């Protein structure tokens, strides 16, 4: 391996122009990052194939990684875990804003390095111009989608329409297929999706509805051509490894020109090949990104609810609360019933305002059925990976719990009336516990993940912080139920305060301490699983990855592992607790 790298370096230096023959140390491995497209199920496999092909050409190990979402890919590039990213235009612009990127190539599809965004409506609808849509509803894809959000919003703004007021309702469909289906069903009036060149009048609406009976959709408005996905690296990496970057770049172009390379690329979002490119090609997206970012804060408040229905709902709830308070103070029955009525009304209003149609509910059940069918047979090939993640999760929970215990114990002791005589200290300490407890584990996790990036630390940190508050409260509540007899005996023996704590309280508390800490550990394991969903490491992360990739057979293995883990823990910890009691 080392020999091969030396050989390669020699080859590279020999092959490349003299000027560039400066010292360039090569990374031991190159990582290509992909973000999940709609055919994510096969994405990893195709990405691996591409990585292998590239590796054969540049003689350096190449690994392909499919990240959770665009944001993770951008963050992974920033942190240097991913060297080359396959980025859709908006994340590319985001990355440019965050740390500076070097665009190497632009993807070619249908012979063009561009594609389009379109607003689509139902064939049979009354909408024939953009103006007709005023007061209607729209499905966007998600806030980082170029054709499904950034570009079409920019076009609206350019035509003098503020999307937040132009539409009465906006939703994020998440995927292009979900967006066009929502239009077909009449749940929204329009959707913003990707499109082929306007002359062809095809796009997401023809692709995803091809096999679905029901009304057809038609494009209402097209965008100018939008540059396709980019292959980019960070400015820093490009500066440090100019030869390598050039070599990767030319190899990727060459792959697009070879027969088998083209076959691999086809499976990667219907790519034909790559053309050399730079960031200027993405000016339209940069402008659009800037414009939509600026109006986003205003748009956010009106995304799901119109203010009027919010206000009515609020008034109803307030009225019910006031009457309810009255009811508690033994008011006449009529008032109690009207409070109940108002509350029921508010509930109905909430359901209506949230637009929860029954048909979707039933459709959802059918989808769950499909999901369940997809889960079998389980994909046992991932067992090793899942077990590794399971062990990691347990380790996170263990470290988090143990790290939280000392402070939890201190707060517990400072909060307990029979330990701490000062009422002021007790109140302060209890306040600290309750404040800590009032912030949910997941929220702590989210904050830490955004601060430290995905990985092990946010998980451990969130669990430790959460442990302090919840265990601290449990500790002081238990401490206060301790038998005062031994305490009095120790005082009569001439023990000082700390000695009383040691001999009068601690021996009584020990079994409770052990059992509560064990139980907290058990809860923290479950917490660690869920924390994986917000980007902390472990089995939850794996679950999320498989879910996003629609790899339900692997999901089955994860779920099985979680179930076994939780049951095993329950058995072990209940036995241990019985023994200490």
């Amino acid at each position, binding site marked *: 391996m080392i020999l091969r790298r030396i050989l390669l370096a020699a080859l590279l230096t020999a092959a490349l122009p003299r000027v560039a023959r400066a010292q360039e140390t090569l990374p031991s491995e190159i990582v290509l990052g992909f973000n999940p497209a709609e055919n994510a199920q096969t994405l990893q496999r195709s990405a691996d194939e591409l990585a292998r092909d590239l590796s054969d050409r540049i003689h350096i190990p190449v690994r392909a990684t499919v990240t959770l979402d665009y944001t993770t890919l951008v963050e992974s590039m920033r942190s240097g875990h991913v060297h080359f990213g396959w980025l859709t235009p908006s994340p590319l612009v985001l990355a440019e804003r965050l740390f500076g990127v070097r665009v190497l190539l632009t993807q070619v599809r249908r012979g063009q390095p561009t594609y389009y965004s379109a607003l689509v409506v139902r064939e049979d609808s009354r909408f024939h111009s953009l103006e007709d849509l005023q007061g209607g509803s729209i499905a966007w894809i998600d806030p980082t989608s170029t054709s499904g959000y950034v570009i079409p919003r920019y076009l609206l703004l350019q035509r003098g329409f503020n999307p937040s007021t132009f539409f009465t309702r906006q939703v994020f469909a998440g995927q292009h297929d979900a967006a066009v289906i929502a239009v077909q069903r009449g749940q929204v009036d329009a959707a913003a999706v990707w499109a082929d060149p306007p002359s062809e009048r095809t796009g997401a609406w023809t692709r995803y509805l091809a096999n679905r009976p029901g009304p057809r959709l038609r494009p209402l408005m097209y965008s100018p051509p939008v540059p396709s996905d980019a292959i980019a690296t960070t400015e820093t990496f490009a500066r440090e490894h100019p030869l390598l970057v050039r070599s990767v770049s030319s190899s990727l172009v060459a792959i697009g020109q070879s027969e088998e390379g083209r076959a691999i690329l086809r499976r990667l979002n219907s790519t034909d090949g790559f053309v050399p490119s730079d960031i200027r090609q993405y000016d339209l997206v940069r402008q659009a990104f800037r414009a939509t970012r600026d109006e986003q804060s205003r748009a956010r408040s009106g995304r799901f609810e119109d203010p009027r229905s919010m206000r009515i709902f609020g008034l109803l709830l307030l009225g019910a609360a006031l009457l309810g308070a009255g009811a508690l103070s033994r008011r006449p029955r009529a008032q109690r019933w009207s409070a109940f009525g108002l509350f029921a009304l508010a509930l109905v209003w909430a359901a209506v305002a949230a637009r929860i149609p029954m048909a979707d509910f039933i459709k959802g059940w059918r989808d769950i059925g499909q999901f369940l069918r997809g889960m079998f047979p389980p994909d046992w090939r991932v067992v090793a990976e899942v077990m590794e993640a399971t062990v990691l999760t347990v380790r996170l929970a263990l470290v988090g719990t143990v790290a939280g215990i000392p402070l939890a114990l201190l707060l517990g002791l400072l909060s307990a009336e029979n330990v701490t005589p000062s009422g002021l200290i007790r109140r302060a300490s209890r306040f600290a516990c309750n404040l800590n407890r009032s912030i949910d584990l997941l929220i702590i996790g989210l904050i830490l993940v955004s601060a430290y990036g995905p990985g092990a630390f946010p998980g451990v940190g969130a669990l430790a912080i959460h442990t302090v508050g919840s265990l601290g409260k449990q500790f002081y509540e238990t401490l206060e139920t301790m038998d005062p*007899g*031994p305490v*009095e*005996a*120790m*005082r*009569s*023996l*001439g*023990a*000082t305060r*700390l*000695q009383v704590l*040691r*001999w*009068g309280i601690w*021996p*009584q508390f*020990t*079994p409770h301490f052990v059992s509560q800490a064990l139980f907290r550990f058990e809860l923290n394991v479950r917490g660690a699983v869920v924390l994986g969903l917000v980007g902390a490491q472990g089995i939850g992360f794996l679950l999320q990855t498989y879910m996003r990739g629609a790899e339900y057979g692997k999901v089955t293995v994860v779920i099985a592992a979680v179930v076994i883990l939780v049951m095993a823990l329950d058995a072990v910890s209940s036995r241990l607790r019985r023994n200490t009691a």
Partner: protein
Amino acid sequence: MTAAVRLESLRKVFPDGTVGLDDVSLEVPAGQFVAILGRSGAGKSTLLRCASRLVEPTSGRSFIGDLEVTGARGRGLARARARAGFVFQQFNLIRSYTCLENVLVARISHNGWLRGLIGLWTPRDHEIARRCLDEVGLSAKIDTPVRSLSGGQQQRVAVARAFAQEPTALFADEPTASLDPNLASTVLSMLKDYGSSRGVPVLVNVHTIEHARRYADRIIGLSAGRLVHDGPASELSDEAVEAIYAAPQSRPPEDH
């Protein structure tokens, strides 16, 4: 000769206004066994607890030996409390610890603070603890956890603990209330023997007059926090008993 226990006008008013002790003065010479009689709530427990300052008296003074317990503060208070060995009705032992460990903690006031905190007992402490357990007849149970002992055995561990403290005075608050009569006699005679052999005054709250008559040198009676009887055990008349257990006169008539 100075009295081994001397109480001067001890008074205790609880935060809710209840008068627990009302101007009680008492002198007990070394080696005397005093039984304290009274209805429940008459102030028997409060008397012993105020005397050793497990409960803070409102006013008055308490001396154990030549030390004024009521004048002590901080670490000195802890030392002062240690002068009185205390036996409780509910034993108040560390249930998960062995007999020996329970008796060893009595040595806490004879050791430095840190030694007492971490339980680093000296060989002498061990020797004393073993001897005291032997004295109450529990040598065989030294390493048995207290929780697996019977009630009578547990109270004997508690008595051994009080002995190991090497107290200047012995207080026992209803030590026999949780025991059957035979065991009660055993515990009382142990306390009496210890007091008379070492010249330590013993003050015991009892609820059976028969026990008081049999073991005590002197019987005092409390009613509504007041000392209403004080005399040799042999002279306790039925009228005196009636007076002690009569409803306090100062009490308002009960609702009907």
